[in-house]
């Protein structure tokens, strides 16, 4: 056997483990950060019991959720019921492997990486629809229908926004997109593509079912939407998928709009510095929005998606293409 091939595989496995553990820690502490920040914004304290300043709260939550009784209603479609959260989670999490965290740390330098991430994030709608259908409950089913309609309509706006980035860079490869940004006069795509960034951020919030677009959950109307019938750790998997989605979407935004790991300048010894900094700023933005805005009504959500964001993204795409063609 070729030894270099073996080392490559080993390296890949080590890299993926590192990425997985890092991402899981980020997701776990994202829940903590969210509770803490929103608490501060509402002048509460947030978690402060488990560990110093409540720092062990995510771990305690996981332990509790694992111990909880796993209730499966007798009328559910069992195999689909069990698969659905995993579909959501895998689709949300796989995207991270394509994001270039550093010019020497990217798990798969895929030449249609952006397309692949978009495909995966559309696939995560399947997890939602399957869970709603398999639960055999009308609340869950309604939630799933709403979620799928929402994900599909915002997916289009998001893809259109990202297409203008593809036009700017001339490539679907995320690594190439970062390099093209560094080579461009503004260093980041945010300045020429502010409209696309705006559309992308709003669509990303809707895509990950976060406030103010958390209509699939809608506790007041649907008792938690598509995961009504899920309990314990299965329910937690959906939440994990949501937070994973946030991380992936923010990472994608950093890569496509904010110059990725290649920030304004290199920081020696801290390879991920700029990437993580921008990622945290965007994640904070998600939490900030959640603490501020109330939930949309469903027709408002749909009309925002179809009547404003999609035309806006389309016009932006045409303008980008036109300018690209002229100069």
């Amino acid at each position, binding site marked *: 056997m070729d030894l270099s091939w073996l080392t490559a595989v080993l390296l890949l496995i080590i890299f993926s483990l590192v990425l997985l553990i890092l991402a899981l820690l980020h997701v776990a502490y994202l829940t903590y950060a969210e509770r803490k920040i929103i608490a501060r*914004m509402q*002048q509460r304290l947030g978690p402060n019991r488990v560990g110093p300043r409540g720092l062990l709260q995510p771990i305690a939550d996981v332990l509790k959720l694992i111990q909880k009784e796993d209730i499966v209603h007798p009328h559910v479609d069992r195999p689909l019921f069990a698969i659905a959260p995993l579909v959501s989670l895998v689709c949300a999490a796989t995207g991270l492997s394509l994001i270039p965290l550093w010019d020497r740390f990217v798990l798969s330098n895929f030449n249609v990486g952006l397309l692949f991430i978009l495909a995966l994030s559309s696939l995560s709608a399947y997890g939602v629809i399957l869970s709603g259908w398999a639960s055999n409950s009308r609340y869950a089913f309604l939630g799933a229908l709403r979620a799928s309609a929402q994900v599909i309509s915002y997916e289009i706006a998001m893809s259109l926004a990202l297409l203008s980035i593809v036009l700017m860079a001339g490539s679907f490869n995320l690594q190439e997109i970062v390099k093209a940004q560094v080579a461009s006069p503004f260093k980041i795509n945010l300045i020429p593509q502010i409209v696309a960034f705006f559309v992308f951020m709003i669509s990303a919030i809707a895509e990950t079912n976060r406030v103010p677009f958390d209509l699939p959950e809608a506790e007041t109307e649907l008792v938690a939407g598509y995961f009504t019938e899920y309990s314990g750790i299965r329910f937690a998997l959906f939440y994990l998928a949501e937070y994973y989605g946030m991380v992936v979407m923010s990472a994608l935004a950093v890569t496509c709009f904010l110059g990725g790991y290649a920030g304004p300048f290199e920081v020696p010894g801290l390879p991920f510095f700029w990437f993580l900094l921008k990622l945290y700023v965007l994640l904070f933005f998600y939490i*900030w*929005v959640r*603490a*501020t*805005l109330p939930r949309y009504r469903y027709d408002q959500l749909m009309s925002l998606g179809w009547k404003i964001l999609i035309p806006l993204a389309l016009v932006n795409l045409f303008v980008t293409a036109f300018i690209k063609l002229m100069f």
Partner: protein
Amino acid sequence: MKLLEKILLIEIWKGLLLTLKKLLLDKPVTIQYPEKDKVIPAPGFRGRHALVRDPQSGDTLCIACMRCARVCPSQCIYIEYEIDAETKKRKVKRYDIEALRCVYCGYCEEVCPVNAVVLTEYFEYAGYSRDEVYFDKDRLLKNWDEFIATQKRPYLNPFWKPRGLPEKYLPVRKRNFTGV
């Protein structure tokens, strides 16, 4: 101008700015009750029930007039008495308060002519069983001992004197009462 405001999402940014200000400038107002912050109830707070112990006899002041049991809207006070053959005075045999049924209206302490029954300002008495909050006479006297030990003497509960009633209509003990 209206259009520009709409396009630039001015109102949404204003809202976001408000929450950011709260995050950066304001302190949490949460009380961390058992560990850090101590809650002191206002004087006359109606908490755990007690029977005032007579400092002379060591027994309750209650004369078994039954007014408290009669006035109680949730009827959670049960009294049994016997009549002393020599003095012809009533003597309390049983005095129970079922605190789970009590609505803490304070009528019993208002109506009591000798200020024997009290809703103390003690509030930390949650229990694991119903029996723990079913107070019999001994328990009520013990409640009083526990409570009065924490108080600066003399202790005078404002609920002992019903408001809005002329002084002359009050029973003698009530009129003269200045505290324990």
